[in-house]
């Protein structure tokens, strides 16, 4: 840690004017790589711990410069556009450099910590007015714990409010120090069912719940969040179990958010060359979300909110 300014992180997005990742106006830093592999993941480009190449159909002008440039013949022109042969592609990024239309993009850039910090600090006044700050998210930020810790220290020095957005799927040895550095933890509890949790996320439920308890023990403010995924996490029973766990074990929780599923990320899966089992899934109705929120409130939580894109009234009637 002598030379912290040399530290680089693998980042797939820095989103300014971010309004759904904690209080106020924030800048969210998305770190690449995750310990879980939930089938519903909304940021599939955040799962893999190395850069990935994607092709945007709507931006492509079809000049073929990328294909000519690729020395490994990993780009193939088809009737459906440019297809990336991911077995050949080394994600060298040369094609993206020659594509001035921006149709090819490497997701995940090695970024120097000072540059990341400078971008975050540009919106300092907006944080001050709105009670916002920076959110370290991912992926799972603890997978790049050196970078995350260094960035959080820098931000502490600047007096910027820090939220750490974690799935909890990491040993406390690594996660704990990051939690210490944060002002607020955005904590995902997706499912309270040992078997299903392990099946869907690849991580034992106990680890997630244990980490949550430890965060509560040191009195760190927490917002718990549950993504409501049809067929996976959307049963009233599941929401009740999460709520019960919060009531019984997490006194430092300020808020419980249930987040309605949407399929806006379908295109991302396609661009990564993957199909997605949820792409045909409909959004939930407002009523269903209200019902889940009510179920959580019935367990004694007073700070339950739901958000996200829901089915319109018209669609509900269909």
């Amino acid at each position, binding site marked *: 840690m002598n030379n912290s300014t040399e530290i680089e992180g693998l980042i797939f997005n820095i989103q300014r*004017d971010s309004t759904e990742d904690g209080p106020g*106006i924030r800048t969210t830093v998305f770190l690449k790589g995750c310990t879980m592999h939930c089938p519903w993941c909304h940021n599939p480009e955040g799962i893999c711990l190395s850069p990935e190449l994607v092709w945007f159909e709507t931006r492509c002008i079809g000049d073929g410069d990328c294909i000519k440039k690729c020395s490994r013949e990993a780009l193939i022109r088809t009737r459906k556009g440019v297809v990336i042969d991911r077995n050949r592609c080394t994600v060298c990024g040369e094609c993206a450099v020659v594509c001035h239309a921006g149709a090819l993009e490497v997701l995940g850039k090695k970024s120097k910590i000072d540059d990341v910090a400078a971008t975050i600090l540009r919106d300092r006044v907006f944080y001050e007015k709105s009670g*916002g700050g920076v959110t370290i998210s991912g992926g799972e930020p603890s997978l790049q714990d050196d970078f995350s810790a260094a960035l959080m220290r820098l931000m502490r020095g600047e007096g910027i409010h820090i939220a750490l957005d974690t799935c909890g799927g990491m040993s406390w040895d690594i996660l704990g120090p990051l939690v210490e550095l944060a002002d607020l933890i955005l904590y995902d509890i997706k499912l309270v069912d040992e078997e299903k949790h392990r099946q869907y996320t690849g991580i034992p439920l106990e680890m997630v719940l244990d980490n949550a308890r430890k965060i509560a023990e040191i009195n760190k403010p927490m917002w718990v969040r549950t993504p409501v995924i049809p067929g996976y996490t959307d049963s009233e029973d599941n929401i009740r179990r999460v709520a019960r766990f919060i009531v019984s074990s997490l006194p430092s929780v300020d808020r419980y958010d249930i987040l309605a599923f949407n*399929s806006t990320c379908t295109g991302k899966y396609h661009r990564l060359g993957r199909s997605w089992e949820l792409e045909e899934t409909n959004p939930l109705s407002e009523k269903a979300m209200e019902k889940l929120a009510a179920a959580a409130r019935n367990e004694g939580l007073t700070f339950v909110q739901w*958000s996200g*894109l829901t089915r319109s009234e018209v669609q509900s009637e269909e």
Partner: protein
Amino acid sequence: MANTSGVPLAREEVSDDSYLPERIKKFKDRLASAVYRLDLERVRYYTQAYKLTENEPSYIRAAMGLEKTLTSMTIRIEDEELIVGSKSAVAWGDPIYIEASVNHPHIKLALDMYGSGKSVEEALEGMGGGGLGVENAAFLRELPNISEEEYSELAKEIIPYWKNKTVEARRIALWEKEGVITDRKAIASYGNPVGWIVTDHPPQGHLTVGIKKVLDMGFAGIALQAEQKLEGLKGQAESAKAAKDFWESVLVSAQAVCSFASRYAALAGEMAQKANGQRKNDLLEIKERCLRVPMEPPRNFMEALQSIWITQVVALISYGGSSIIAPGRLDQFLYPFYRKDLDTGRITREQALEALMEYYIKLATNIYFGPNNVTIGGIDRDGEDAVNDVSYLFLDVHLRLKGCMRNGLAVRISPKTPPDFLRRACYTYRYAGGVALYNDDVVIRDLLFDGYSLEDARNYSIVGCVEPTGTGNNNGYTATNGISLMALFEAALNEGGRYVSGWKPIGPATPPASSFETFHDVKEAFIKQLSSAVDECVRAADLKDRVIADYYPLPLLSSTIEGCVESGKDITGGGARYNHGCITNGSLATVANSMAAVRQVVFDQKLLSMEELVRRLRNNFQDAENLRRQMLVIPKYGNDDEYVDELAVWITSAYNQEVRKHKFWMGGVYRPCIISVATHIAWGASLGASPDGRVAGAPIANGISPANGDERNGLTALFASAAKVCSIPMSDGTALNVILNPLTVRTDEGLSKFVSLIETYFALGGRQVQFNPMSRETLLDAQKNPERYPDLNVKVSGFSFRFIDLTIKVQNDIIARTEFCVT
């Protein structure tokens, strides 16, 4: 100041018309479905009056024209109306100000359409105006038929008489004499080769009518004021002749307004005789109000509203329905009446709301140019918070009517403004566009820079699109004469030549681009072009202004403006307390992006020579699509990127200096302004390819907004960029247009965050911002034509997406939730 604040409306009340009072719903529907008709009455009566007064002074002729019109024109009281008065004999038409030009769009259209089988599109094409016509011709719901009589009256009586007498004809003659310009056609429209334009319309732009004076004194009081002045003249020498003429014209005009109101009183009385029940009472009350106002000061809320409306009507009749006459700070004017009526039980909040809705719908009948801004909020003359219950009422009116045509609500925000007022103003974006937010701190600073007193600066109103002026104390003259910065930048790269002139030199011969050795040389050539265009524009405008002052003064309007009756001069001759000229422009982002692109590829990266770049531009990037794409990804204004923002500030500053170098001929300053209504389309059509990657003919950026779709880093970055530009005193206003997905402010939490964004933008020194909620129509169109919306971003659950990158199914979900109504 105490307030009861807006009662929050239930979602249904806003999104469902059935919650509007029946009467209001009818008015709204009537307006929305009215069909445009040519209205020749004003032209007819003014022509008659001018023919009869050939040897009279200009002041008297103008007053006689008004008197003839106000006493002769058709008047009517519509079913269920409580506030009466109409500027036109037809439901959807404008009184035409023929004095400016016989090429008025309505006249051109009428002549063009007569006996022709043209389509609406062809008709609009024929209107010319370089795009302005097309943008503003939304009023053409179907093609107007004009009768043979109307055609023959226009062709035989009206046009032959005015042909050589209009402002346009006289200033062209004067310009030729003074050698201003050789190609007189060149400056007739936006997008012309010279890169600057003047307007022949009174009052050389737009202004706030002196509502406060009318409420305080009544037109009888104004007439008395003029009489006393005339009295004081007795026995004085001939030298005061002009003042005498002016005061006489004020007297005639003020009396004509009083008789106009009396005609409405008489009509209401007549109608009452035939009416029964509630309507009979209503008509009798209308009669009583019209007997009282605007002759005398109003005694209650309804009289005040009637007085305000009829004053607007006569102002529009007097100077033509195509002018933009703003009423100013109506919440300030109306509050004392509202408070008193409320306290004495004369009116309820609901009744006042309904009356204001009726007024607001009437205000939306300005059909050729819009919008009509009502100013609310802000601080008062003493610097104290001025928000009151009527300010909230106007927000509710706007919300309930979901905006109204192109009416704009200019909402002033100061550090003293109650937080819930700003919140309420932002709340309107859930359901309607049309609210613009102004930062008192910055606007007042700018106005002080123009020479306004602190008290008068604090009392500013918004007129036209976004232009701040004093309230009822100045000559207006906002957003008028203009230059196109981008046209001048094009000339700077082409030795004064322009795409639209076939690269023939129009501006001064600056050195060829091939000789530019440093980026500084580029800037220098631009300054030379800019300086020369502003000089020419000012010289041409001065001559044109003198034509207006000599031939077409504005006695009625002047009589309401502080300083005029006092000084014996009207507003076209420098009689107002404050006088200022204006030169506007609107393509800031395109020029800044283009300069940044030149700097990067030619001077920083040395990818190609200046000469080659210019050649590529002249060829419209033919066979150089890759170069163009490269230019497209060079930093763009609106993303908080210093590389280009610094240039945007430099351009604004250079433009500010060039404009402010000139003194206005009436005294006072020339004010700079950065807006575009549709001019960015017209100017864009006349421009070759630009270094920012824009192809020839494509629109340029609008106001101080980023070029189309260039904002990629969210609102915080956009505001940071814009705030830098706002540090330069563009006192005649700047427009920052932002497309907003109404879903962003759907929840209370989302709304709170949105409000804090605005607060921060203003704390950073942003001047103004207006949000155009993305409509369903836009989204549907983007779905169908993705190529036209490369950078349409939608925010869903905090994530920004390029709309066209989403799958159709997801797009449909978003469309279904975007229940926006933008009329």
